[in-house]
């Protein structure tokens, strides 16, 4: 009832771990899988080791989080050890990567393929790391080039993660023409100021907004792109409950990723959402989650 196939990859359920949340080490990802995730996306990995920004890197709001981790990661060479441990973990492992040039993306994607990743997710959307992510992801030509070159270099599916911080996300989605699936959205450009300190809270000043408060924006991105682009969409942004997930499916997502909600609900959220979505499907006479994908379009 919940199992799905995207780009010939079989997912036991459509609730995946989002990149950057509890996925820097294989052991943690294993634990999330045990809690029922249908797949995991790794932390975005780059060419070299990066410590990320100085604390504070996160700011809690009643309705979400602002983060500026700064893409910390041990670098693609060291990450091989984690990927090796994930072999036979039972669900697809999607290797997320970020680069500063097309060549870097190609190199990283090949590495991930060699490490056994089932797919690669291009992070073209991190809103707070200079020269990476979003600075690339807002430019349709760069997006087309990177996706095209990575596609030529690997035989695993290539997912492209889009930023909502653009005038027209449909334009970028179309530029990612060669991608096998689209993942949206990454975080919204944001910041917070502490009035007593009279300064920005994050050491990086800027950060990305995630959690419940971005769901209406993510939903609209998925809905818009579903209308115009014929490709699987993975919805991400503020999925905190089974109703949030169903909204994304009905807007056109074939799967969803879950990040920030793990802070508030814990890793058990995966099993809970699976159970509750399955219950809803049964009660409404649906045989498969696939049957509700895009039903809100009419």
């Amino acid at each position, binding site marked *: 009832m919940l199992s799905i196939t995207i780009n010939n990859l079989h997912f036991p359920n459509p609730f995946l771990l989002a990149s950057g949340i509890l996925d820097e080490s294989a052991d943690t990802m294993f634990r999330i899988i045990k809690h029922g995730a249908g797949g995991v996306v790794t932390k975005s990995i780059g060419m070299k080791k990066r410590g990320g920004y100085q604390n504070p890197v996160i700011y*809690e709001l009643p309705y979400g989080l602002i983060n500026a981790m700064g893409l910390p990661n041990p*670098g693609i060479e060291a990450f091989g050890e984690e990927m090796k441990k994930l072999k036979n973990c039972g669900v697809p492992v999607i290797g997320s990567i970020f680069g500063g040039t097309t060549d870097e993306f190609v190199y990283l994607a090949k590495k991930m393929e060699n490490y056994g990743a089932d797919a690669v997710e291009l992070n073209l959307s991190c809103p707070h790391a200079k020269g990476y992510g979003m600075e690339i992801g807002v430019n349709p030509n760069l997006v087309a080039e990177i996706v095209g070159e990575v596609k030529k270099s690997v035989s695993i599916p290539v997912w492209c993660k889009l930023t909502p911080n653009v005038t027209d996300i449909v334009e970028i989605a179309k530029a990612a023409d060669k991608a096998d699936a689209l993942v949206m959205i990454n975080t919204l450009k944001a910041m917070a100021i502490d009035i*007593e300190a009279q300064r920005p809270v994050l050491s990086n000043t800027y950060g990305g907004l995630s959690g419940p408060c971005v769901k209406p924006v993510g939903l609209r991105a998925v809905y818009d792109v579903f209308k115009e682009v014929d490709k699987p969409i993975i919805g991400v942004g503020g999925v905190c409950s089974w109703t949030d997930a169903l909204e994304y499916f009905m807007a056109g997502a074939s799967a969803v990723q879950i*990040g920030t909600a793990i802070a508030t609900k814990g890793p058990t959220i995966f099993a809970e959402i699976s159970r509750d979505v399955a219950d809803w499907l049964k009660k409404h006479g649906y045989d498969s989650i696939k049957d509700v994908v895009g039903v809100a379009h009419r």
Partner: protein
Amino acid sequence: MYRVVRIEKVVQETPSIKSFYFVDNSNPAPGQFYMVWIPGVDEFPMSISAIDDLKRFTVKKIGDGTAAMHNLQEGDRLWIRGPYGRGFKPTDEPALVVGGGTGMATLAPLINALRDADVIIAARNEKELLFVDEFPDKEVHIATDDGSRGFKGFASELAAVLIDKKEYGMVYTCGPEPMIKAIVDICLARKIPVQASLERFMKCGIGVCDSCSINGFRVCADGPVFSEKELAQMTELGKWKRDPSGMKVKI
């Protein structure tokens, strides 16, 4: 969102350790921690070391952040968020509490909450012993690496001696990880329940970033206090930690 608290009192505990007293109406359990922000400098985790009308952090100076904190005085402000994490589960049975260095900061409110506890306070030398006079109604044992006061040797060695003499229903520990590892091993071998509070590099403090994880356990959200069942699964305990990039490094 941070709360701003005013420092009401500063106490020099040892040459390298100061305590900071403040008022805050959160309600932490012994073993829980806060993220403390010094604007313009750093943000880092701190255990609550006293839970009364005045709350307390007890801080060892080891780097820029803690040095900046040591410069603060009565009337200065701290930015805090929390309490976070899972604290100690108290017991009614006779307990042994083993604290090394600033580990005593984490254990102090627990010791005060326990009915029947013996305490080992350990440090490199006499000068660095923390809170030796804070528990007048408990049996307090002292251990120093250099023997400058009390038992000469590691806290774990003294703990083994005490454990073999008296039937403890629970052992609690916090301190340098090799010490923790030794005590956990002693307890596992003797099948005595044990709870240990661990430290890892923390960024978010709320269980999303994976920077503090040890064998898949998030120290910030699943811990910092873990029990023997979990500790037994931690192949990295006392051996490996992760640096801010997530790279595994030797302890």
